[in-house]
């Protein structure tokens, strides 16, 4: 038996969320007294990085047929690796790719799946994994009862410091059949760090009055090394691109720091951000419901507070770099 981790790539490089998934899987391997193998599907030139995060072996399925993402084809590659390695626990990152293939792999293996895990499994009585449910309003501890177990890890959930090992990299050539989904076009909206993986996020809402006022939000985000996000009305009015919308119908995020500027904190917005570790709310309405979920709050006009905060952040950077 062993642990198999699917390591996602982007533009031919190991993706940041994959390092976290490998660190997570390696820790489980240590706890279960076994080894962690990573599988990389598609072109990638830095597979050896995975060794630094605890994988002892990397299977690299690098063939032209993996150049475009077909969940069915990727599923076959991963399940072939499960067989080859005799893996009992299969780990994914709960990102766009993981959401498309982890459930297929689970169905193919007839294995129980916990998606969006936020912590290491408890092994003392079976294999129990914690995940957020009811859109972040509660947690469930879910026990997987099948011999094979699939877990997808919510990004930014566990520590991912390198452990300084090294992995042997082997070429892997599974039988996968023909693709059924053809990619016609990829429209890049942003080259920045994806919101779901950003450790810091500065977000703004209708309180900013118009898209022309986003400059200070972007400047603050830049000074803090954060990604930018927005509330639903802002994306609905096309003030900001659709992919920046966080909340129940947009993306759900879990950064270490979430700064909400001029967002009242409707329950649908909170559903997408309430897992954030530290929440700062800036709003001129002291009664805004968001303050109830905030760690830190500033009651004041965004157009006065944000520029001052930007100066303070720049001063902090100057003093600490």
């Amino acid at each position, binding site marked *: 038996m062993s642990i198999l981790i699917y390591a996602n790539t982007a533009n031919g490089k190991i993706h940041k969320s994959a390092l976290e998934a490998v660190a997570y899987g390696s820790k489980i391997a240590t706890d279960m007294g076994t080894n962690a193998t990573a599988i990389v599907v598609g072109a990638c030139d830095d597979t050896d990085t995975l060794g630094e995060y605890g994988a002892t072996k990397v299977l690299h399925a690098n063939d032209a047929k993996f150049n475009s993402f077909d969940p069915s084809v990727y599923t076959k590659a991963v399940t072939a690796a499960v067989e080859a390695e005799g893996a009992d626990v299969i780990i994914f990152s709960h990102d766009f790719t993981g959401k498309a293939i982890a459930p297929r792999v689970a169905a193919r293996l007839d294995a129980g799946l916990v998606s969006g895990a936020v912590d290491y499994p408890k092994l003392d009585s079976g294999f129990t994994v914690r995940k957020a449910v009811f859109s972040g309003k509660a947690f469930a501890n879910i026990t997987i009862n099948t011999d094979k177990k699939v877990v997808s890890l919510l990004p930014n959930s566990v520590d991912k410091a390198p452990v300084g090992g090294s992995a042997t990299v082997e070429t892997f050539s599974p039988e996968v059949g023909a693709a059924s989904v053809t990619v016609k076009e990829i429209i890049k909206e942003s080259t920045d760090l994806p919101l779901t993986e950003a450790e810091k996020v500065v977000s703004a809402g209708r309180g900013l009055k118009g898209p022309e006022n986003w400059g200070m939000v972007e400047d603050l985000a830049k000074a803090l090394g954060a990604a930018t996000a927005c509330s639903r009305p802002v994306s609905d009015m096309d003030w900001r691109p659709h992919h920046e919308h966080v909340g129940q119908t947009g993306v759900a995020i879990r950064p270490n720091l979430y700064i909400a500027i001029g967002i009242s904190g409707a329950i649908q917005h909170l559903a997408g951000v309430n897992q954030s570790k530290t929440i700062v709310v800036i709003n001129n309405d002291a009664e805004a419901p968001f303050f109830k979920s905030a760690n*830190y709050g500033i009651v004041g006009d965004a157009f006065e507070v944000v520029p001052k905060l930007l100066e303070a952040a720049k001063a902090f950077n100057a003093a600490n770099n």
Partner: protein
Amino acid sequence: MKILVCISKAPDTTAKIAFTNNNTEFDTNGVQFIVNPYDEWYALVRGLELKEQHSGSVTVLNVGTAENDPIIRKALAIGADEAVRIDVNPTDALQAAKEIATYAKTQGFDLLLLGKETIDYNGSQIGAMVAELMDLPYVSLATKLDMNETTATVSRDIQGGTEVVELSTPAVISAAKGMAEARIPNMRGIMAARTKPLNVVAASGASASTTISSYELPPAKGECHYIDADNVGELIELLHNEAKVI
């Protein structure tokens, strides 16, 4: 075009979340249940729009007990032609997916649509599982869907952008925001829904592979620490020294 839309029952977004029986069961007392919004607003409405363009039929499918009939009638009121309920209360996604796949395999649907996730368990699992069990192509998190004859053109969210893909039907597609606009049932729809067929089908007996051992509410958030708007430097200091996030 024969379209199947899978709908799930979910607690209303504003429902108070509490647990009973030593934190092992969701307390449904006083909870209003709705059609899972992603299933209703995006999957069902896009299914109806495609039927309007290409003719055919829209069937809604729910895996659940008779308690779910009101939300199934709501889907019929919005415009689905008929409904099927597989008569079992599933306890995990794989069990529900197996029931859906077993039924759908024999029905010759061109398209299976469902929402990107439910708002209660937030699993995002069933669509991909059904696709695998039926050996069909699957596109997740689709924001746009167009059909012609036997080809579907789908836009889906990917990291930092959108991917446009083409696939042949039958296929399974999970719907996200952007695919359609919610429809509110009118009085005529509500009246018609009462007499539309709701067929109850016996479950195939698939079993669950996971169990929920316990639920927990998140630890209570401490009081909000207010910082004077004239002294925002203090916030930076607290974020650095206390919260340790910068």
